[in-house]
């Protein structure tokens, strides 16, 4: 994806007003709610999105996830950037 490179490691991703990560009791799953949109969120995406608080930088989020899940940093970095660039294109994450 061409815009992967454009996400800076210093970006502080956040969910804008009008976008919520919600645990839905009825369906027993995590959902990302936005205007006229409901996205099912897998456990990895949930861990990433919970850290998008507008304070942590992208590189801090990647460090944190790599440490917590004992995973290779480069792979985590690619996963995080792929998810966030996709959601930014849908205006569901601000970078």
């Amino acid at each position: 994806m061409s815009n992967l490179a454009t996400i800076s490691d210093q970006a502080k991703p956040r969910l804008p007003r009008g976008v919520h990560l919600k645990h839905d009791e009825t369906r027993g799953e995590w959902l990302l709610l936005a205007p006229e949109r409901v996205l099912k969120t897998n456990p990895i995406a949930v861990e990433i999105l919970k850290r998008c608080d507008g304070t942590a930088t992208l590189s801090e989020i990647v460090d944190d996830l790599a440490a917590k899940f004992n995973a290779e940093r480069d792979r985590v970095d690619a996963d995080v950037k792929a998810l966030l660039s996709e959601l930014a294109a849908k205006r569901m994450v601000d970078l």
Partner: protein
Amino acid sequence: MNALETTPTPIAAPVGILAELTHRCPLGCPYCSNPIELEQRAGELETHDWMRVFSEAAAIGILHAHLSGGEPAARRDLVEIVAHCKKVGLYTNLITSGIGLTQERLKQLADAGLDHVQLSIQDAAPESADRIAGYKGAFARKMDVAKWVNEAGLPLTVNAVIHRANIARAGRMVEFAVELGARRVEIAHTQYYGWALVNRKALMPSRAQVDKAVAEVEALRETYAGKIVIDHVIPDYYARYPKACMGGWAKRTLNVNPHGKVLPCHAAETIPGLEFWNVRDHSLGDIWFNAPAFNAFRGTEWMREPCRSCPRKTVDFGGCRCQALALTGDARNADPICHLSPHHDKVSEIAATFDEVDENVPASDYNYRMLKTQVPA
């Protein structure tokens, strides 16, 4: 019980509620999605009724509450209703013409937890916009409202219904939404039910106008990628397959009208013989699972040919029941938009009568939406 009997598919919980808080509205848009027989102010649900409805909605798994009308700002208890929705965990979307909102009220709504505002724009050209709305000064007021929405920190969607008088500016409307600070824009070609069906002669564009407008808007997707999300509803009179109306009858969403009647879609009351239940008599969950109107066209068992044996029957669910009724006389028929429908030639015939039209529509050609004056008994 037969061992080979298939287990019936369980009815999934609804995801959205469209709450028509009132049918009162200062605008008279000739394509309004409300029914022709609008509900009077007398008999509207009270604040506590709506609160119960929203509590029940959240409890059965509804996620989005669309606060609509008429003009929802005509309800004095709008802030209270938003605060209650927030309390029970619903995502609140205010669908408004902007008329009746002030900067102060928007701030109160934002503080009460409103999640999103969808503002209608009738045209990007002020005079034309006011003529379509049948309300002088509406356009100017909407410009203020868009500014106040941004200042209140609320995300904004601009909604533009497209028809003959504004179709030349379909692409311009996307740019205009960006200028207004919207993060999302709906470019929705008119669907011909209710008021729009009454006004079809004045609203429907030619095939050439549609093709040009659709191409223009699609090309802007790339221009504005990451800046604004474009939701494009293309006109079905020129399509080959019908749309999956409402994502399937009684499958995803429900409508509650101002008097508490619960409908599977805006236009469902046009279908004769359906029994609708009211939130005054039943809980929302009981209505969703058991009301006869909801079960009338649920699933695929009710279908006739060509739908019944069609591989697309779970893709488009036979299209729209109300359109099937309006154009073929029977709601059980396939939506005649489908080229496989034996009635498809009716759609082509209607569309062909618009081959030569241009964008000039005198306001005298519109039947503006209005509430009938109540006749004293």
